[in-house]
């Protein structure tokens, strides 16, 4: 139970971070927090119900590694392009 509580807490922290931070790096960091909160929940379930949860968590970690590479690459590209990573400035696609 405490696993799930910790996971929920971590997830809420992540959401809060996404909603309040203006820098793309920190928004990205908060998303990672949410991701890992989900991983924690999976591992917690695995303790109660069997190993499948751990397998899922490992898969998530492996894919998240790739996702981090893409996400950070995008952020670096944006920074190179406009000398800033503030997400509020990125509104060019607004209709």
């Amino acid at each position, binding site marked *: 139970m405490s696993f799930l509580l910790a996971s929920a807490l971590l997830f809420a922290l992540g*959401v809060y971070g*996404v*909603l*309040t931070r*203006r820098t793309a790096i920190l*928004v990205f960091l908060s998303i990672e927090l949410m991701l890992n909160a989900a991983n924690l929940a999976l591992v917690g379930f695995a303790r109660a119900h069997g190993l499948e949860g751990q397998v899922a968590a490992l898969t998530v970690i492996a894919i998240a590694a790739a996702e981090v590479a893409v996400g950070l690459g995008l952020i670096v590209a944006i920074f190179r392009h406009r000398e800033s990573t503030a*997400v*509020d400035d*990125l*509104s060019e*696609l*607004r*209709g």
Partner: protein
Amino acid sequence: MALLLPILLPLLGFALLGLFGKRMREPLPGVMASGLVLASFLVGVGLLLSGGARFEAAWLPGIPFSLLLDPLSGLMLLIVTGVGFLIHVYAIGYMGGDPGYGRFFAYFNLFIAMMLALVLADSYPVMFIGWEGVGLASFLLIGFWYKNPQYADSARKAFIVNRIGDLGFMLGMAILWALYGTLSISGLREALEGPLRNPSLLALAGLLLFLGAIGKSAQVPLMVWLPDAMAGPTPVSALIHAATMVTAGVYLVARSSFLYSALPDVSYAIAVIGLLTAFYGALSAFGQTDIKRIVAYSTISQLGYMFLAAGVGAYWVALFHVLTHAFFKALLFLASGSVIHALGGEQDVRRMGGLWKHLPRTRWHALIGALALGGLPFLSGFFSKDAILAATLAYPFGGVGFYLGGLLVAVLTALYAMRWFVLVFLGEERGHHHPHEAPPVMLWPNHLLALGAVLSGYLALPHPLPNLLEPFLKPALAEVEAHPLAPGAEWGLVALSAAVALFGLYLGYTFFQRKAFPAWYPAFEAWSREGFYVDRVYNALVVNPLKALSEALLYGDQGLLRGYFGLGGLVRGAGGALARLQVGYLRVYALLFVLGVLLVLGVMRW
């Protein structure tokens, strides 16, 4: 194929003048148009001398495009192109300096082409093409000076009134098609020999076709458009609204003579309508003050005479009057045009008078025209009118009542013809003009027309004397058994109508020269001036209710449109409100996303 030429030549002129007329120097469009009509005339004469012609090409399923040149259509072709050519030449002078010079002759050639299609047609649908085409040309030419809204209204009026008749024409065609499965005129003529299959339905078809003729020929009750049609230039009045187009109705009845000779009741109705129209036109001519409107009402009256003749079964007599009328009425109109030209556009007879000494040529044209119209013995109008009067007694559908009515109209005709002449040419000068005689290009057509107005009557003289026209037209018309009058009676009638015409002319001359009017005359003149208020009655009974209905419908339509506009505005507002959600801030999207997830989870939980 050669039969297509008379139609195609003026049509070519229409195309060329319509496309390039604006760039041509002044007399060129007129010369070109006149030349093409003359060429058409010559081709027609050549074909007629070679014994007629026939043309047929595949067209609609079951309805070939067929043309026929027989004596009947040949006579009309010669009138249309011959008189048409003279009026074209006259218009070269009359329209000089008009900014729409090329356009005028383009329309004129279109008219000739369509009129020839009407005349040469050997099936009703082909005739209908010409029928509508001349209506269009008439509309375009009445509204030729379209910048004057009154003239444009006149053009619309003519078109709309004609449309009522055209509906009759179409329905008549539909019934004939349903009865016989063919609309070829020669085919129907063969089919109608022998006993009739469905006489009452056939009579309805005949009446409906005649309704078309009523509209086109301005008969009671659809005569209201013709006086207003005088808004067009004078050559238009002469060509379309006197000599040719308005006689298309008479031609239709003569062309369908095989049908009408089998329907005595319908023929009787035609004769009654003709006589009524003759009366109406003659009585209305007395009060008019516009030089052209007097002649226009006389045209209505003379067309009534033609229908009287066609109604009693004397089809060749109707065409005889078409022929003589084409000459003297075109002459009257062109003489009026010369007067208008001489006075610099003045059309009110109250400001004319005393032109006898100023217009040494035109005065003779007008005198010959007026006397021929009034039926002075030995002029063309006398012979054709006398033939009509004699026909009312000799032909099977006639009667003494028609004769007496016709005789009375003859007196009236002589009276108003003299009124027209006296008011314009005699008496003291009432205007402040310096009249000048027309140029030769306008005088020569009138010389020739005057010659025709004098001589064309000798084509068909009363009985023992030679009659060229009747045997010429006979093969194309239905056989009607006439009871020829005894020579004594016939010549008695001739003497009577001569006496009546002379009496009318003399009375008219003294009456209007001395202005010795009886007491009731001014009241009658006031009624006559308004055409016996027929226009107002139509306005009150038909036009205004229709206008009110259409305005109500327009109002309803606008309400409906406003409703649709409201609906559209609502959707647009909703779209605008939703579009405001897209602010461009990433964190707002994230927040909405989170709220959405919470909502979905909450719903699932609940």
